[in-house]
């Protein structure tokens, strides 16, 4: 259970074995500026995702927005587009000499606002991470107790005051948890900042590791990045501890309150969700399809398809094993946490969750140092890639499994034991079937995230092993964007399957039978 600690331990070892000179060389220079830039990016991404997700959640849960169920599903769809693919496509559309400029040139437009740089990265990261916040907040909003808001209205508060004093506090922990998720994503992101050339921590680390012949510097910076992330997480845990307990104690609300009539706000609301959807979903997919079509019939399609099938096999295999292993490991930990809470399980939980805060690049570096020093047989193997996925994404499986176990009534297990089934039999015939959907949701979530993973896959994969993500990354390296379109579209198509099972089907189910149960989908939305 201490496996998640390996990358960090080995980062410490590697950074520790570097001389003071290396520490000096690494920590001087513009490190403060880079740290500040990375943190600012994370903070603004969090703010941006809240600004999109909270109004959106309101519109689909509480308003009379036309076709709001559809908008609720559409809002989650950008999750199928890896953020670096989104960045790529948006550069193709809006970058210098991109499609938009070609369209506008006859009208005399020579230059568009710069896509590259901080602003561009901010917009892209917000567009492709807001669904995390939306899923959490929408689920929480469905669970809110509206009687408080009603009471506030009854006492003469305006709708806005009633929302602020009665509903917002109930949503707070979900908003913060979601925003933290996107902030961590932005802080650890490697693909988007590399493509858009923003000098952040991860880009610096990769530069040192990949180009500047400086692995010690990369280890030192990786360690600094980890420390900052853990501090942020600790603060978050302290702040939200009380809130979370309260949220867990709350039961599913049967009364969702009346729909708020949008009135003259209906059109602006529709414009809002349409514009976001255009940029986060329609334009990126359109650009990819356009690129693919622009290749035309050139006789190389057989090779192209063979290559993409092979990458697809690589992606399915690595992400599939990662998901299975995560689901299997999550089960005993979740059982301990739910049925026998205590000191040890909570330590295990903390270690497991720490993997979440580890950016992929840093996890990969730590595992590389570990394998070259202590376990060379693991070096460049499929196994170490799976270990990286499990370290990083086990928390997702654990969150979902735990939430579903919490809904299994222990009395059923006792009854089963009482009737003579052993511990294993009870688990197999009672607990597992009841908790199954949550376990599957967790595995699906791990699968979805692992499919999109780039930096750890690049570094840890076996020689010659391609995944869809690495294949399309290689094409973008030589600026061959049309060639990147095929693996990108296949990746999107495959990612749509777990997203469908995870979000769309459950949400549709809830919409159909709103008042009956707590939504099973929200446990899978990330934790």
């Amino acid at each position, binding site marked *: 259970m201490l496996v998640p600690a390996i990358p960090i331990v080995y980062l410490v070892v590697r950074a520790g074995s570097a001389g003071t000179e290396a520490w000096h060389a690494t920590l001087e*220079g*513009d490190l403060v500026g*880079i740290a500040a830039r990375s943190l600012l990016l994370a903070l603004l991404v969090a703010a941006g995702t809240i600004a999109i997700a909270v109004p959106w959640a309101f519109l689909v849960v509480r308003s009379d927005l036309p076709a709001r169920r559809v908008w609720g599903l559409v809002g989650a769809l950008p999750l199928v587009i890896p953020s670096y693919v989104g960045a790529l496509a948006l550069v193709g559309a809006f970058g*210098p*000499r991109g499609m938009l400029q070609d369209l506008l040139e006859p009208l005399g437009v020579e230059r568009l606002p710069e896509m590259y740089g901080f602003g561009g990265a901010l917009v892209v990261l917000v567009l492709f991470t807001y669904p995390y916040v939306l899923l959490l907040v929408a689920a929480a909003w469905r669970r809110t107790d509206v009687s408080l808001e009603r009471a506030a209205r009854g006492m003469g508060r305006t709708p806005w005051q009633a929302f602020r004093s009665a509903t917002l506090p109930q949503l707070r922990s979900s908003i913060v948890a979601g925003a933290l998720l996107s902030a961590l994503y932005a802080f650890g992101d490697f693909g988007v900042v*590399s493509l858009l*050339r923003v*000098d952040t921590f991860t880009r*610096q680390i990769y*530069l040192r*590791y*990949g*180009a*500047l*012949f*400086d*692995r010690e510097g990369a280890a030192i910076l990786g360690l600094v990045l980890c420390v900052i992330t853990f501090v942020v997480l600790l603060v978050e845990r302290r702040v939200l501890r009380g809130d979370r307990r309260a949220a867990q104690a709350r039961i599913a609300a049967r009364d969702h309150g009346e729909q708020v009539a949008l009135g003259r706000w209906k059109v602006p609301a529709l414009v809002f969700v349409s514009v976001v959807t255009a940029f986060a979903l329609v334009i990126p997919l359109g650009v990819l399809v356009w690129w693919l079509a622009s290749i035309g019939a050139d006789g190389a399609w057989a090779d192209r398809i*063979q290559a993409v*099938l*092979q*990458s*697809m*096999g*690589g*992606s*399915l*295999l690595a992400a*599939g*094993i990662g*998901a*299975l292993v995560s689901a299997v490991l999550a089960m005993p930990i979740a059982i301990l946490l739910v049925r026998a809470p205590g000191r040890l399980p909570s330590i295990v939980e903390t270690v497991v969750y720490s993997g979440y805060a580890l950016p992929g690049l840093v996890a990969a570096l730590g595992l*590389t*140092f570990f394998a*070259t020093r202590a376990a*060379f047989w693991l*070096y*460049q*193997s*499929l196994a170490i890639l799976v270990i990286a996925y499990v370290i990083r994404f086990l928390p997702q499986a654990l969150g979902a499994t735990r939430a579903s176990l919490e809904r299994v009534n222990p009395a059923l297990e006792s009854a089963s034991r009482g009737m003579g089934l052993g511990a294993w039999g009870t688990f197999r*015939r009672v607990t*597992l*079937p*009841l908790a*199954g*959907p949550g*376990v*599957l949701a967790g*595995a699906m979530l791990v699968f979805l995230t692992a499919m999109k993973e780039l930096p750890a896959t690049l570094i840890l994969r*076996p*020689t*010659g*092993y*391609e995944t869809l993500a690495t294949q399309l990354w*290689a094409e973008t*390296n*030589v*600026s*061959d964007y049309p060639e990147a379109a095929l693996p990108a579209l296949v990746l999107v198509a495959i990612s749509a399957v777990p997203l469908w*099972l995870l979000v769309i089907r459950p949400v549709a189910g809830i919409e159909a039978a709103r008042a009956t149960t707590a939504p099973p989908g929200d446990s899978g939305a990330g934790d």
Partner: protein
Amino acid sequence: MTARPVRTRLLPCIALVAVAAFTVAGCGSDSDDSGSTKSSKDDKTLVVYSGREKKLVDPLYERFEEETGINLEVRYADSPEMAAQLLEEGDKSPADVFYSQDAGAIGAVEDLLSDLPAGVADQVPAEYRDDKGRWTGVTGRIRTLVYNTDELEKSDLPSGVLGVTDPKWKGKIGVAPTNASFIAFVSALRLAEGEDAAREFLEGLVANEAKIYPKNGPIVDAVAKGEVQIGLVNHYYIYEKLANDANAPVANHFFQDGDVGNLVNVSAIGILKTASHRKEAEQLVDFMVHDGQDFIVEEAPEREYPLVVSADIASNPRYKELPPLDATEGPDVDLSDLGAELEKSVQLIRESGLAT
């Protein structure tokens, strides 16, 4: 929430993973692929660490596999990353062969290389080989200035590379300061003109707000798009670009004779001491400096220079725009010295603020 849906959904998942495993393993046993997993490695599979991009060299590797029946397992990454990785792996490296983008990156790991067999690289002139016989050049390339032909005339361009720090190029020049070829050029600049001149040049690029790109290819793209007007690259990247877009407004500008901006560098190959397939590794090196040279001259899209003395490009139409390799007089720099200079050059590039 009954048992059935779980089981019926779990089965397809497991089946999917099994199919994926089958696909990967199945493709891995094909003769012409580069994507096999470790488990399918057999005795005749050679592990190549390739610092050159897949797009540029994959056809060459495929030709070798066709001719010899030896499978190659190729790992692609930037040359300095490969070099650093080889140092990290030390005596446990799984690599048999390192094919580097430039002489500097392979020179940086020359202690890990074993001597090439006698005579294998005799056809390659001594100036394009390691003094001590541990690696040999495979292809030649010239550093050059790519420019946008819509925006600029040839007469607008500087006659020496130091001229790109002139304020008139402010915001109009692209460089790839972390790329092996640029780092080698900085090494040459330091050796030919001294530390101070090199520092001044790099600081001049910073002052000129040079745009930073990860590699040469994106610079040529940016020049073609007009994002920048000029860029420091190797000579062959425009041919890759022109192959995709024949109308791209890009051309190479070579500096005056003897200018350090015309550095001739080589892509270079060597065999690791730890190689577990020595015989096959030697076959690959032999291929690169013999049969592979024809392929480079006749078919490879990027028009690099062959290095063997017997290769004739003077009458080849593909090379009609290019000066002969030995006619472009570069600086007086020994390629064997570049490896030892790599770390210091990287240090200088970082200190200048061009890449922090």
